[in-house]
């Protein structure tokens, strides 16, 4: 994750082709086993097995339609899988009553690909939405908290009064990041955090993600196509192909992992074991 996060790196201790040993020894923060999901006749997830250790930065890689987004939507409870087990801190969230499942959301933050900011609300209300919606904070205090969190993502207090539509793409990503961390979650998901940004802004957002996750001590799960971003924000990477996790290993080894599929994907090579399906 970051140069200073040695503890987390030790905890992740990834190895090519298998889950890391420390994570196996302790309860993973997130554990998926045999998760399957089909839409109509199309099997999108075909038995996903994945462990994410507490405090680890995991990046899930894969081509379009490989099941990355569906995987994290299943963890978030936005999509109900057909089969399988999804555990958070050892508790199978799929078996939880609805209220407890909803309460689990208090510990989770999410940055959506397009930001998904509420355009009917000013930026500061977007940032502190969860705190306000649950009446955990007064509006005056929420405003102060929003200014504080906006500063953490490099935005001035005056941005708080703007509408999301008045912001550039990079600023919208920063606000979305601020919203994801405002309630101090212990698990944060990032869906294509740098998509649509120029390389410099992408690097800035990645840096902010690393800083914020490190400050919170949170577990981070990101999905991305951007290899530079994957190396910057991930300690461990997992490759999903045709609805299955086909490789897990250190993010730093992307491109020279020894796994032909991962290396083809990471290096953007046309020829290799992954063949693009032009028509399904």
């Amino acid at each position: 994750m970051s140069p200073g996060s040695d503890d987390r790196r030790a905890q992740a201790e990834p190895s090519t082709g298998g889950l890391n040993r420390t994570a196996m020894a302790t309860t993973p923060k997130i554990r998926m086993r045999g998760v399957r999901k089909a839409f109509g006749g199309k099997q999108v997830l075909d038995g996903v097995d994945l462990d994410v250790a507490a405090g680890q930065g995991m990046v899930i890689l894969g081509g379009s339609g490989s099941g990355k987004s569906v995987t994290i939507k299943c963890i978030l409870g936005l999509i109900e899988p057909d089969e399988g087990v999804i555990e958070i801190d050892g508790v199978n969230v799929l078996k939880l009553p609805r209220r407890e499942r909803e309460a689990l959301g208090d510990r989770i933050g999410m940055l959506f690909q397009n930001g998904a900011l509420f355009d009917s609300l000013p930026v500061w209300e977007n940032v502190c939405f969860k705190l306000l919606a649950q009446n955990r904070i007064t509006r005056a205090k929420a405003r102060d908290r929003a200014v504080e969190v906006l500063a953490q993502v490099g935005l001035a207090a005056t941005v708080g009064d703007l509408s999301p539509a008045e912001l550039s793409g990079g600023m919208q990503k920063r606000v979305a990041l601020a919203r994801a961390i405002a309630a101090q979650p212990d698990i944060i998901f990032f869906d294509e955090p740098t998509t649509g940004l120029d390389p410099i802004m992408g690097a800035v957002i990645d840096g902010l993600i690393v800083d914020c996750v490190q400050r919170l001590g949170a577990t981070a799960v990101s999905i991305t196509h951007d290899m530079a971003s994957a190396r910057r924000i991930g300690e461990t990477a997992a490759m999903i192909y045709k609805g299955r996790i086909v490789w897990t290993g250190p993010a730093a080894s992307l491109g020279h992992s020894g796994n032909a599929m991962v290396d083809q994907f990471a290096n953007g090579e046309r020829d290799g074991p992954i063949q693009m399906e032009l028509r399904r």
Partner: protein
Amino acid sequence: MAAILLDPLAAIGRATLGACRTVGGIALFALEAVSHLVRPPFYGRLFARAFLEVAWFSLPVVALTAVFTGMVLALQSYTGFARFNAQSAIASVVVISLVRELGPVLAALMVAGRIGASFAAEIGTMRVTDQIDALTTLSTNPMKYLVAPRLLAATIALPLLVLVADVLGVMGGWLIGTLKLGFVSAAYLKSTFDYLETDDVVSGLVKAAVFGFVIALMGTWCGYNSRGGAQGVGGATTSAVVASSILILALDYVLTEIFFAQ
């Protein structure tokens, strides 16, 4: 040969199942939304915003519709009733037609065009831009946050709008009656109130509440279930207006049967 005979039947069967699924889906959606009205947390600010949108900002269009409808009704009644020397019944025909039928139905159709479309477009855009998923990840139930306040606001606002429409419609009829048709003002008003009964007003207001609920239900349901980007949102908006308009007219008949059938 068998396929030629069975294919149309299969298509009818599929359409019937699809219709049942849709009706069932709308019923469950409505039940869930209503259940959120009695379970905390309550979003008072969202209710107030939706109420302002439905009641206050729809007032001009509903008022204009009512005034002109009252004026046209008086004129048409006069030309028809003059053939039977029954011009004295114009005031009562105007008020009863407006209060029982035209007030609620026309106000509801106007609001369906404004508010039904607005609800569907707003919630549909939220759906296709992941804002509804974002609500869920922010520990906020989208049904409670987006749907329930709008349903309550429209159900309360429509009767108030219809009350205003009734008064303005009668005023439109009175204007034409006194300025153009030669009625004495006091006599026109006396005739208006002599024939008006409480049931006429109450039935119109109950209809309005039902129409308000239906408009908000169809607007939110179509928006909530929209898919496929801008085209999906456009389709949802059209469906919301068409479905609520048809339901308003169909339910108008059903409610009239319930209130006035002998």
